[in-house]
C-alpha cells in the first residue's frame, strides 16, 4: 500500500510538470511585454528594465521557465497585472465561495443521482429508468446559464422564494450562506446528476446480473439489502471514478454559474482576469484548478482500496 501510494504520488509529478510547461508557455506566447504591462503606462524605461531583470525576462525561455517554477515551489504565482496584488493572495480571497458552491453541488448531486441510478437499474426498462435516461441526455444538452436563468425566473422572480443573486460568507451565518447557495448549486448539479446517475445505473445494472445477487435473493435477503450491500457496493468503483472525472465538468460549470449568480469566487475571477487580459492571474487560476483536479483523481484512485477490498496495491 505504501509503495503504491509513493508510486501514485510520483506519477502525478510528470503530469503536473507538463501542465506547468503548458501554462507557462501560455503567458510567454502573449503578445506584448509582461514587464511593460506590469509597470503600467507611466513607468520610465529604467523601471521597466528593473522589473524585467527582477522577473528574469531578459533570460532565455528555458531559464525563465526554471525561474518561474522555482517561484511556484515557493508558493509564488507572481503579481496580477490588473489587481496589483499577489495572485496567491487573490486566489485565497476567492476560495471560500467556490469551495462552498462546489462542495454543496457535489453533495446534492451524489445524494440525488446515486439513489436514482440504483432505482433505475433495479426497475430496468421501467418509467423511472426511461425518464432518467431522457433527463440525462437533456441534462448534458441544456447550457448551465440557460438553466440558471430559467430557475431564477421561476424560483426568484415568479415565486420569490430564493434570492436572485449574490453570496453571503459563511461567517455571516450558516443559514444565510446556505440560502444564497441553494439556487446556484441546484443549477450546477444538474449536469453532474446526469453524468453520475447514468454511470450508477449502468454499473448497478451490471452487478445485478451477477450470480451472487441471485444467491442473495434466493436466501431471502430483503431487497433493499440486496440493492445496497450487494449491488451498489460492488458498483462503487466506476461511480467514484466518474465523480472524480466529473470534477473537470464541475469546474467549467463553476466559471459560468458564478458569473450568472454574481458569486465572487474563482470562476468569476477567471472571467474577470480574461476580460482584463491579466495573464498571471489566468495562469494561477488554471494551475490551481488543474492541481485540484489531479489531486481529486489521486484520492479517487486511493479510495478504490476502501470500496473494493480485492484491490491491493
Amino acid at each position, binding site marked *: 500500500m505504501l509503495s503504491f501510494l509513493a508510486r501514485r504520488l510520483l506519477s502525478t509529478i510528470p503530469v503536473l510538470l507538463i501542465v506547468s510547461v503548458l501554462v507557462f508557455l501560455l503567458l510567454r506566447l502573449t503578445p506584448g511585454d509582461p514587464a511593460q504591462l506590469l509597470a503600467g503606462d507611466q513607468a520610465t524605461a529604467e523601471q521597466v528594465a528593473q522589473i524585467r531583470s527582477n522577473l528574469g525576462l531578459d533570460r532565455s525561455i528555458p531559464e525563465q521557465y526554471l525561474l518561474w517554477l522555482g517561484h511556484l515551489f515557493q508558493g509564488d504565482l507572481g503579481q496580477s497585472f490588473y489587481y496589483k496584488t499577489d495572485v496567491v493572495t487573490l486566489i485565497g480571497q476567492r476560495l471560500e465561495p467556490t469551495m462552498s458552491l462546489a462542495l454543496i453541488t457535489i453533495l446534492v448531486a451524489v445524494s440525488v443521482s446515486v439513489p436514482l441510478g440504483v432505482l433505475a437499474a433495479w426497475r430496468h426498462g421501467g418509467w423511472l429508468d426511461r425518464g432518467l435516461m431522457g433527463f440525462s441526455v437533456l441534462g448534458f*444538452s441544456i447550457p448551465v446559464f440557460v438553466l440558471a436563468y430559467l430557475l431564477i425566473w421561476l424560483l426568484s422572480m415568479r415565486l420569490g422564494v430564493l434570492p436572485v443573486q449574490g453570496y453571503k460568507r459563511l461567517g455571516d451565518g450558516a443559514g444565510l450562506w446556505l440560502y444564497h447557495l441553494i439556487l446556484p448549486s441546484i443549477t450546477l448539479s444538474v449536469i453532474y446528476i446526469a453524468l453520475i446517475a447514468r454511470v450508477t445505473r449502468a454499473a448497478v445494472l451490471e452487478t445485478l446480473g451477477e450470480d451472487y445477487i441471485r444467491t442473495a435473493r434466493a436466501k431471502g435477503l430483503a431487497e433493499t439489502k440486496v440493492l445496497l450491500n450487494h449491488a451498489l457496493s460492488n458498483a462503487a468503483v466506476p461511480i467514484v471514478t466518474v465523480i472524480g472525472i466529473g470534477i473537470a465538468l464541475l469546474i467549467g460549470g463553476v466559471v459560468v454559474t458564478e458569473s450568472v449568480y454574481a458569486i465572487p469566487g474563482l470562476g468569476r475571477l477567471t472571467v474577470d482576469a480574461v476580460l482584463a487580459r491579466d495573464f498571471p492571474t489566468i495562469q494561477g487560476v488554471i494551475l490551481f484548478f488543474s492541481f485540484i483536479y489531479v489531486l481529486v483523481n489521486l484520492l479517487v484512485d486511493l479510495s478504490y482500496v476502501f470500496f473494493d477490498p480485492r484491490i491491493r496495491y
Partner: protein
Amino acid sequence: MATPILPDDTLSVEAATIVERPSTWQRVRRNGSVRLGGIVLGVLVALALAAPWLGTVDPSLFDPVSRDLLPGKTGEITDLDGNTFVHTFVFGSDSFGRDIYSRVMYGTRVSLIVGLATAVVSVTFGVLLGLCAGYLRWLDGPLMRVMDGIMSIPSILIAIALVALWRGSLLTVVIAIAIPEIPRVTRLVRSLVLTVREEPYVEAAVSLGTPTWKIMLRHILPNTTAPLIVQGTFIAASGILVEAILSFLGVGLPPDIPTWGNVMAEGRSQFSEFPHNILFPGIFLAVTVLAVNILGDGLRDTLDPKMARRT
C-alpha cells in the same frame, strides 16, 4: 432485401442462408434516435441556409425607436441606406432596437459551423496524433504524457485562456474549443491502432514490405471510422455549447457577430424585464445540442456497439 424475420427452423442450412443481417447503414437509418436527431438537425440546417428568406432583416440593423419591444410587437427599423420601414419583431427587440428573431436565425449558422468545424479539427489532429502514438512506439510515451497534461486542465479553462490570448474570431474560437478535445480523440485512435496492428492482415502487409504510411492509411485508419464518427458527433455538441458559453461570458466571438451566446449576453442586464432576450436563443441552443446528442447516442448504438455496452 430479404426480411430479417427468422423462419421456424433456423437451424437448417437452407434457412440460415436466407436470413440476411441488415447492413450497418440500414441499421443506422432505422434507429429511432438517429432519425429524431437527424430530422431536428436537418430542420436547423434548413433554417440556417434559408435565414435571409424567413422574414428576417439584416441582423446588424437597429433603430433606437424600436428598443426593448416585446415579442410580436411591430416597430420600425432603418436599413443601411437610411430607409425606415415597418417590421414585426417576432421575438422582440434588444436594447439597441435590433430584431432578436433575425439575430437568432443568423446565429444558427454560426453555431452549426462552429460545431462542425470543432469536430473536424479535433478529429483530424486526434487521428494524426493517435496514429503516430499507436504506431511509432518511441513517440507513444512522450506524446501521451503531453495529452495527459492537457486533459488535466479543465477544457473550458483552456478554451477561455486561448481565446484571451488570440482574441476572438471564428477561427481562433474553433481552434480554442478543439484543442482540449484532441487528447480524447488521440487516446481513442491510439487504443484502436494498438488492437488493429496485431491483426494478421497488418502483419501480412508488414511482411510484404508495405511502407508504414500506407499501412496506417489503408489498413488501420478505416477501422477507426465508426468510433470516430460517434466521437465527432459528441464533440460537435460540446463545441456548440462551449462557443455559446464563451460568447455569453463575453470572451468569445466579437459582439457584432450574431451568435446565440452574444444575444444572451446582451440580454443579461435586462433579464428581469425582458426574459425573452435569453429565452429564445436559449431554446434554440438547447434544442440544437439535444438533437446532436440524440443523434450521437443513436450512432453509438448502431455503429459502435462495444462502446454502447460500456456506458
